[in-house]
């Protein structure tokens, strides 16, 4: 009964005309962001956050808008995968494998519809699962003390870092750089650190500046370096019809992909890219020789799209219940929550039920909006896809600058953003992941805080960090999460590179 009354509360918020309008706008923007190559969910959400924030929305509205963008971007990524053979964002990489061959065979419309419906199935099931699972995890998280939280943060760094790079030392380095940056400023304790008389640093480094710099500005540099190869649609999109037979044939594929994707998403650090990869690989080995994978099998677009959208929903579970993001984009959403003075975690469910349940109800509605946009109205987005990079990238840059500028009005922050942009470009070249840096800046303060509280409680006994079964389990998982990729990499290469 609890669930029903919570949902009723959620829908009473989500069905207000203003919230609905925000959800529709968010879905539309998100689909565009997802579809445009070079603008993924994390940098798309990143450049929109400062603007949303300077509009002065309340917490629920801002969260509704940005999560709609997030879901939308996950839907939209497949459009350029199928039509251009360029993933619109990283999780849509697997969709190119069968989506583009289908398009070349003149079945672009079918591929778009099947993947659109698969996205819907994945996202919808994941939202339901989120709704059922999140309150339980939140209740479990009530038992967490400082020792458990410290171990949990460690787990987030080890798994997110472990997945993000091929080199554990580089992933650890990135996390440490983020943590180091988080120490700058006055912090919760009130002791100014690493300020060196610079008043701009007193409040610490604004994580929005770091996020926009590392994700959006660095993207501009990457594009400039590759000389912004003009993308052109090489395949024709004829009339879009609903391929009923193929939809029915891929139904179970979608369900399987959704389950795998959701599990991958809930694990901290794994995120949507892993969700779509695992869903595709599992489906391929399940169907075996009978399949036509890699040459335009409809199941090859249904599985990864269900997987990536389910993972997107799954990644919201640890973010909302524990305050630990499961992916780059949820890290950006966490930054949004923290800017709005909302502390995610178990207390969010009891203290601010309107935020959580308003969000969940909106996501349920947003899925239907997205289904409508991505199946019958998909042609609009195909047209937007033709915006040349020479217009898109300067536009992204200017929006980034205006966003940060209208937030802080300080040239110092803009310079810092450029610096982070250069850093992001350099690090990406060197295979040093940037997401752990963001995670470090976001979690550094609480991580230190929990360590200090744990030590105060125990009178300085470091063994206190391992004093509860939950903490020990989290430590073991953290160590495994960091070490396992080293061994896994020997057996499992990274997702197959797209060459043609």
């Amino acid at each position, binding site marked *: 009964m609890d669930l029903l009354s919570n949902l009723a509360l959620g829908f009473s918020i989500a069905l207000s005309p203003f919230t609905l309008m925000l959800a529709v706008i968010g879905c539309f923007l998100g689909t565009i962001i997802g579809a445009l190559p070079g603008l993924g969910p994390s940098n798309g959400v990143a450049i929109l956050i400062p*603007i949303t924030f300077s509009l002065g929305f309340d917490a629920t509205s801002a969260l509704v808008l940005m999560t709609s963008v997030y879901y939308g971007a996950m839907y939209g990524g497949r459009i350029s995968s199928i039509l251009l053979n360029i993933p619109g964002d990283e999780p849509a990489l697997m969709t190119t494998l069968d989506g583009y061959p289908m398009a070349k065979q003149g079945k672009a419309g079918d591929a778009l519809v099947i993947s659109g419906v698969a996205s819907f199935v994945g996202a919808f099931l994941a939202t339901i699962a989120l709704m059922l699972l999140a309150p339980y995890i939140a209740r479990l998280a009530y038992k967490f003390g400082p020792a458990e939280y410290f171990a949990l943060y460690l787990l987030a760094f080890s798994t997110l870092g472990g997945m993000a790079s091929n080199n554990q030392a*580089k992933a650890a380095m990135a996390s440490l750089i983020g943590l180091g940056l988080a120490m700058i400023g006055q912090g919760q304790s009130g002791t100014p650190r690493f300020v060196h008389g610079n008043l701009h640093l007193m409040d610490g480094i604004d994580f929005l500046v770091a996020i926009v710099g590392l994700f959006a500005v660095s993207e501009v540099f990457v594009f400039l370096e590759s000389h912004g190869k003009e993308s052109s649609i090489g395949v024709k999109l004829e009339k879009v019809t609903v391929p009923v037979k193929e939809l029915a044939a891929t139904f179970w594929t979608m369900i399987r992909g959704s389950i795998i994707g959701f599990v991958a998403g809930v694990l901290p650090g794994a995120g949507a890219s892993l969700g779509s990869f695992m869903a595709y690989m599992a489906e391929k080995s399940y169907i075996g020789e009978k399949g036509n994978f890699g040459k335009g099998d409809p199941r090859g677009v249904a599985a990864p799209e269900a997987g990536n959208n389910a993972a997107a929903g799954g990644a919201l579970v640890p973010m909302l219940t524990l305050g630990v993001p499961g992916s780059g984009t949820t890290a950006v959403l966490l930054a949004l929550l923290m800017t709005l003075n909302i502390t995610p975690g178990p207390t969010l469910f009891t203290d601010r039920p309107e935020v959580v349940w308003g969000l969940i109800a909106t996501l349920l509605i947003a899925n239907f909006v997205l289904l409508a946009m991505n199946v019958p109205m998909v042609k609009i987005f195909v047209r937007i896809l033709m915006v040349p990079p*020479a217009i898109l990238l300067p536009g992204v840059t200017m929006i980034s600058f*205006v966003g940060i500028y209208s937030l802080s009005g300080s040239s110092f922050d803009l310079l810092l953003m450029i610096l982070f942009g250069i850093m992001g470009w350099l690090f990406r*070249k060197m295979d040093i992941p940037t997401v752990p840096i963001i995670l470090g800046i976001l979690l550094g303060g609480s991580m230190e805080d929990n360590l200090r509280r744990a030590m105060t409680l125990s009178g300085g006994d470091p063994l206190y960090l391992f004093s509860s079964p939950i903490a020990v389990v989290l430590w073991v998982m953290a160590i495994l999460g960091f070490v396992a990729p080293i061994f896994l990499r020997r057996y499992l290469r990274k997702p197959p590179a797209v060459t043609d």
Partner: protein
Amino acid sequence: MAGDRIFGAVMIVVALGYILSATTIQVPLFPDPVGPKTFPFMIGGGVIVCALYMMFRPDPEADWPPLRSLLSLVIATIVMIGYTYTLKPLGFLIPTALAAGILSYQLSPRPVAAILTGVGLAVGLFVLFRYGLDLGLQPFPRGWL
């Protein structure tokens, strides 16, 4: 190879500076057992360990861009820094048109298209931000209007 080694060496210097700076943090009168210095020390130490690993077990060299692409990155950086400093005194429209135009020209060297992109983005974004989103942007240098 060399890239990882140089980066590792730089990060060791940075980490040592960070640790040195952490030693000067003022400890409050009644500190907790950990205090404000310990966590920064741990971070600095961790960075040194990772940096040493990178120096002794470097990855294959990254695919560095040729000098010409590097130059265009430097130009883009200068444009962005210039934009930062002119946004306040010159208002939104002129610096945005210039910066967006130059960036656009760098991506696709067609002067007319670049000028149109710059002016179009400046005006379009101004209308969007000022009237659509109600952000307080100054269109021209103060005193012009």
